[in-house]
């Protein structure tokens, strides 16, 4: 077949994506979108894969309100990994079954065993599940980088703790394994090397930057959790730098780049810094149509610049 434009499909390790855009975990709820859409949102699903909100072994109620507010060119959040726990989470899988795109499950926890327990429970369920009762779950993203959990510790800031989580999860599944890195470190490649050394297949970055916003009347912390994670356009230049560093250090590793992507050109910048796929986060909050708009803009940019494929644009910023 003769193609009439750039090749948009990319291979994220063994996962074939129709195009490079996925949602950033915790910013896009498929069922909630579907409830507020006139057509069949599953048929019109704009992303190439679905990364749901992080699930943990036990249910978590999350942080006290307020949990979000806008900041200059960005926003801060401290949700605290609110989720129903893996068992209740598994119960809603049939509702996602008609999704054609692959699902990459975001997994959280405090200890390596908790991460592995989530994966083991899901693997056991999938092994026994009847056909047509679950979507195509093709991988996991290990969220070792949430800045808003009550322990105050980010596993991802400690390379050896990161390696322990990845190793425990590697034993629990043969599926594609991403480690999601925190930017709240001196050298993001250290945790990246630890994750890959322990069996991760790829890296996603960056999670949010630990930050603080004050109530400007009382001069007390605004968020119920005191601190939160900063995201949005404000962090994009730092995220690009970190993705480039990781891509340079691990050239053959699948990378999901993210941080403040609002337009197709922003996504292309992450690809140019070495990302295989690009996750859209805060932009999902700005308009219902943001995912499809950003995808169309990315396609237009690739075509206008004469790229034959997404792969051709990958790593442009890293070459002399």
């Amino acid at each position, binding site marked *: 077949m003769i193609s009439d434009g750039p090749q948009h499909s990319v291979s994220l390790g063994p996962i074939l994506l129709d195009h490079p855009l996925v949602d950033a975990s915790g910013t896009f709820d498929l069922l909630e979108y579907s409830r*507020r859409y006139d057509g069949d949102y599953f048929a019109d699903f704009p992303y190439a894969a679905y990364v749901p909100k992080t699930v943990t072994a036990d249910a978590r109620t999350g942080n006290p309100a307020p949990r979000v507010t806008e900041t200059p060119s960005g926003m801060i959040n401290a949700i605290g990994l609110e989720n129903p726990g893996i068992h209740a989470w598994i119960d809603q899988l049939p509702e996602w079954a008609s999704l054609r795109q692959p699902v990459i499950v975001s997994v959280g926890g405090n200890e390596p065993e908790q991460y592995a327990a989530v994966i083991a429970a899901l693997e056991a369920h999938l092994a026994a599940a009847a056909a047509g009762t679950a979507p195509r779950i093709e991988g996991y993203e290990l969220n070792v980088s949430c800045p808003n959990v009550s322990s105050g510790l980010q596993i991802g800031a400690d390379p050896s703790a990161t390696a322990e989580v990845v190793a425990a999860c590697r034993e629990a599944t043969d599926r594609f394994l991403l480690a999601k890195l925190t930017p709240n470190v001196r050298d993001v490649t250290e945790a990246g090397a630890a994750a890959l050394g322990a069996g991760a297949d790829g890296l996603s970055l960056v999670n949010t930057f630990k930050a603080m916003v004050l109530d400007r009347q009382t001069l007390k912390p605004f968020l119920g959790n005191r601190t939160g994670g900063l995201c949005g356009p404000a962090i994009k230049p730092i995220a690009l730098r970190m993705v480039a560093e990781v891509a340079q250090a691990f050239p053959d590793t699948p990378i999901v780049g993210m941080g403040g992507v609002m337009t197709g050109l922003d996504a292309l910048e992450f690809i140019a810094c070495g990302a295989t796929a690009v996750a859209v986060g805060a932009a999902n909050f*700005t*308009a*219902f149509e943001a995912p499809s708009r950003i995808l169309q803009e990315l396609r237009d940019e690739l075509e206008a610049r004469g790229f034959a494929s997404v792969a051709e644009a990958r790593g442009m910023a890293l070459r002399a």
Partner: protein
Amino acid sequence: MSDADAQTCGDHSQWAETSHCRVAGVRHFGAFAAVELIAPRVARRAAPGQFVMVTVPGGGFLLRRPISLFAAHGDRIGLLVEARGGGSEQLTQLDVGDNVDVAGPLGSAFPTEGVTNALLVGGGIGCAPLQYLADQLAAEGAQVTAAFGFRDFRSARAAGAFSIDRLWVATEDGSVGKAGTVLHILASLDVAPGTTIYACGPNPMVAAVQRWTFAEGLRGYVSLEAHMACGTGSCHGCVVDTARGKVRVCSEGPVFRLDEVTP
């Protein structure tokens, strides 16, 4: 009150696609602006208590602002906006002919079916959804009384935007209407048995109205305010404590039964 004798506040049509709307009219009341938008697809689906997410024009603000529907009729919706921060201030400065992006209607609505006597209790900008509710209740033949509380003369300017036949106003500084809070108005009213209470305002007011309602042996509904990011159920930013745990104001609310929330 059991589940059986109260209508649930869910299952209203929600629609999150963006409508590009033209401003058809603006009326200013001090720091408040009543903005009328041509939004046929929003107006057609809307019910009192629901809200819209409004993009702040000019591109300087990332997140949309949640604003409850002040009115909806024909192809028009009305919003009552208070200049509180940079984003809302810009929305009060909209002019006729300007364009603004709106997503909605979103969230749950005030149940009105079978209501014969209604008492609407509002505080500050929280009064906004009660005009649309009053219009709907009146159209359905209900007797409507409203009690609105404001902090001072400045915030009481908002009262000028409302047209409700039996509307009582209180200000904490005594500058307009009764001196005190809405509770002082409630204490002076002769409330018919079986009256349904509808409340919207800051959490301390909601808590006080809740106590008064239970003490009077009445039942009712409340629309809650919260800081939101997405407004469409994805971010879990706007949770509130309820009898069934933390729930999202944007998705499970903003309208709840008065007896299920702990504001």
